[in-house]
């Protein structure tokens, strides 16, 4: 089901101060896609999720889920969470400690007054789906973090909802388990025809899991797009910086060539390949991701986008070296293959393909 959010505003009052949690949010979450709300903590992403599910009431606006209006300030509609027919996986999992695994998963079905046999069948099916067969009678508190996470997922999936909401569900798992669970979750969700809204502050989680991402900041939606669009094509400094490490270089557009603008910066002239070029004379920021910078001890082979610099520091981080290169007064971060024979202090060339540069307007 599609979720449409119109003109949503939400303010909190705490100790005499007003805190804006959501500011004029307009958003359409497409049906049967994994949609992620990404942003730093306190950006309002969890508040937005809680408004969708009905645990929080916005100050203004309207929320439609499918054909139903679940919240409308103007029409005075508020459908309570238990009547919205959604499912949610909480950050804390919210596994009820006084029930065993079966009872936890059966709960939403019992609420819906389904027959005992049907409940038993569905719980078994769901537990098999999340690979927790045979755990039915285990007390919920006697499970590991990853298993509790899957019980929470099973409980959310059991009533076969049309929409499922996730509030940072992986943040309590350790790094390795988080990676595995992320992949599992992706395959679970793509196998089901289901609309998933996923909240996280982890950019890798957002990029690898989502069909579409909305980046949020201070209660506002900054940008919406596919992971690739967000990562490579963002026009905003905040978004480009938030979704991955990048080098931001200030400059001025000096001319527009056939395939894009030329920008004069402190490290030299950078050629960018973009579709929407700002007019000549405008001040812009160029973003170059570390993985698009090739470092070589020889020449780049062509003159365009080739810069000379000195290796300031090299840190081995496993799959690569992270190098800090100084070009004039500017420091650039790069990724260097672990096999490269480069030492700190070396004079090297930096080569950048024009399609690896993007121009940030805001």
């Amino acid at each position, binding site marked *: 089901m599609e979720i449409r959010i119109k003109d949503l505003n939400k303010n909190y009052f705490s100790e005499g101060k007003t805190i804006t949690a959501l500011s004029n949010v307009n958003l359409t979450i497409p049906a049967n896609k994994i949609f992620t709300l990404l942003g730093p903590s306190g950006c309002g992403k969890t508040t937005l999720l809680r408004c969708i599910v009905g645990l929080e009431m916005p100050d203004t606006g309207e929320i439609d889920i499918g054909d139903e209006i679940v919240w409308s300030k103007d029409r005075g509609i508020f459908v309570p969470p238990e009547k919205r027919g959604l499912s949610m996986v909480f950050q804390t999992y919210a596994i009820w400690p006084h029930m065993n695994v079966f009872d936890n998963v059966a709960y*939403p079905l019992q609420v819906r007054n389904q027959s005992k046999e049907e409940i038993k069948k569905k719980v078994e099916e769901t537990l098999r789906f999340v690979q927790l067969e045979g755990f039915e009678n285990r007390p919920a508190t006697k499970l590991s973090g990853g298993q509790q996470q899957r019980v929470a997922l099973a409980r959310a999936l059991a009533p076969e909802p049309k929409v499922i909401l996730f509030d940072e569900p992986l943040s309590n798992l350790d790094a390795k388990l988080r990676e595995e669970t992320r992949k599992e979750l992706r395959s679970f969700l793509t196998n089901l025809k289901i609309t998933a809204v996923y909240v996280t502050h982890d950019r890798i989680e957002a990029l690898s899991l989502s069909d579409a991402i909305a980046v949020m900041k201070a209660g506002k939606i900054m940008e919406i797009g596919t992971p690739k669009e967000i990562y490579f094509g963002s026009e905003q400094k905040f978004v480009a910086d938030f979704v991955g490490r990048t080098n931001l270089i200030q400059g001025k557009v000096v001319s527009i060539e056939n395939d894009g603008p030329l920008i004069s910066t402190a490290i030299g002239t950078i050629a960018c390949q973009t579709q929407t070029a700002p007019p000549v004379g405008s001040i812009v920021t160029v973003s170059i991701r570390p993985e698009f910078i090739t470092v070589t001890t020889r020449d780049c082979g062509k003159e365009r986008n080739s810069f000379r610099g000195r290796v300031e520091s090299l840190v081995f981080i496993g799959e690569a070296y992270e190098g800090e290169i100084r070009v004039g007064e500017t420091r650039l971060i790069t990724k260097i293959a672990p096999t490269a024979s480069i030492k700190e202090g070396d004079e090297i060339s930096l080569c950048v393909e024009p399609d690896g540069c993007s121009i940030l307007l805001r």
Partner: protein
Amino acid sequence: MVWTRTALTPSLIVIVGFLTVCPVVMLLLGSFSEGLGAFGTFTLEKYIKSYTDPALIEIIVNTIVFMIGSALVATILALFMAYLNTRTNIPFKVLFQIISIVPMMIPHILFAVSWALLLNPSNGLINLLLKQIFNLQHSPFNIYSLPGMILVEGLLDLPVSYLIIAPAMSSFDVSLEESSKVCGSSNLRTLCKITLPVLRPAILASITLVAIRSLESFAVPSALGMPGRIYLLSTHIYRIIATGFAADYGMAAAVGMSALAASVTLILLYRHLTSESDKYVTISGRGYRPALIDLRGAKVPLFIIVALLSFFLIVLPVLVLLYTSLVPYSMVPSLKAFGMMSWKHWLAVLKDPVSLLSLKNSLFLGVVGATLGVILTLFISYTIVKLRTPASGILESLSFLSFSFPGIVIGVGFMWFFVRTPLYATIGSLLIGYIATYLPYGIRPLTSAFVQIHRDLEESSRVCGGGTFYTLRRIIVPLLIPGIVSAWILMATMFVRELSVSVVLSRPGNEVLAVQILRFAEDGLWGKLSALGIMMILVSTTLVVLASAAGAKLTKLRKEG
């Protein structure tokens, strides 16, 4: 949750405010009044009269010696036991758990009386025995003395002290000790130079809490102090209102004010110390167990000491009461004594209308009082933990302060109030007095139960489709049941044995068990006293067993939906 939040906090503040502030204000006003009948006419006479009494100095000195003495006895014993339990390989560790819980079930008045039965100078069983064996002219021991009172009060407060010291001891970072040993110190030196100093906040907290309890204590001073004419503040107040021709509630209030001031000061000190101890005592990581010290040769002797201590704390008092209730008069256990055993005292108690009435009243107060108390504290704890408005802070402080109120002083304060109402000399006055005095005992288990219920647990039930009422029934209530049961048990057992509020508020017509036992003790009717005492223990135990069973059953039912 469903409760309307706007009306809840103010009405709770009114109720709790009434329960805690009313007796204090009435006490204050009363202390400046002529007498119960002449309330409101200002006079300083009562203060002058009570504080120029030459006997008061001795009473205050006695009280301070008693407080410090029992605090030291309880804390040193608790340190010894906690160290053995958490840090050494002493056998039968389950014994330590029994010691820390079971003595709370034995009413203080009975514990004190059982020691009087053993060690009183005229016919205490141990004294009689020693006189027979060694052919002595005089009794070697006299429990009716300040050291005797200190010993018994110290033993009574040992569980409380243990419950403060043992957790601190087990969360102690063992590497502090290990580094001392690496530096070449012996176990003993490490204990004195490292372990005890690091535990200082917990030790001070234990000393303060036991001092508060012995300041409030009425059972031991009345059962052991009054026969030997050793008066403490609490028994002094009791003497002013309960003996002689004219009970002087004005003077009792004037004396009570200083007892109240002392205990409020101590409870604030206690609160300060416990917040300090959170800062200082190092808590180590998860699943961490300190290395146990091998006691080797000392294992058996130390275990015998602990076993004897538990015998004195738990088995002996009950045995003595049982024995005394069956023999016709105090005599050393012998074939002859066993031959003369009968149910005479039991039958006498069961035929005594006042004893029966007190049994009925205490049972009523235990069941109804605990139920009302739990309902009230349920709302209070919900407000403190879940609503967290600025007003709920007032609630927390109010109910915490009432923890320090000495029962007899609160009783006097309430007396000034009730005498003006139709509640005077009714069971209702006791009910209100009890709930006011023991409110914190219900709040403690229930706040921790509410803390356990994370907001997400409620919300996820609602997202799953459970409405407010469904969520309350299937999620919140089942999670609260253990807390409700332990709060109910705590309050019910406290109410069945309640003495210090009751000695003031209990009048002919609303007698309760502990007061009736005190009357028997004053009249030297040991046989009847013991029979009634055993009945009292049976009543409390039955309530505990029934409540636990009900809790277990409810939890099971709720789980199955």
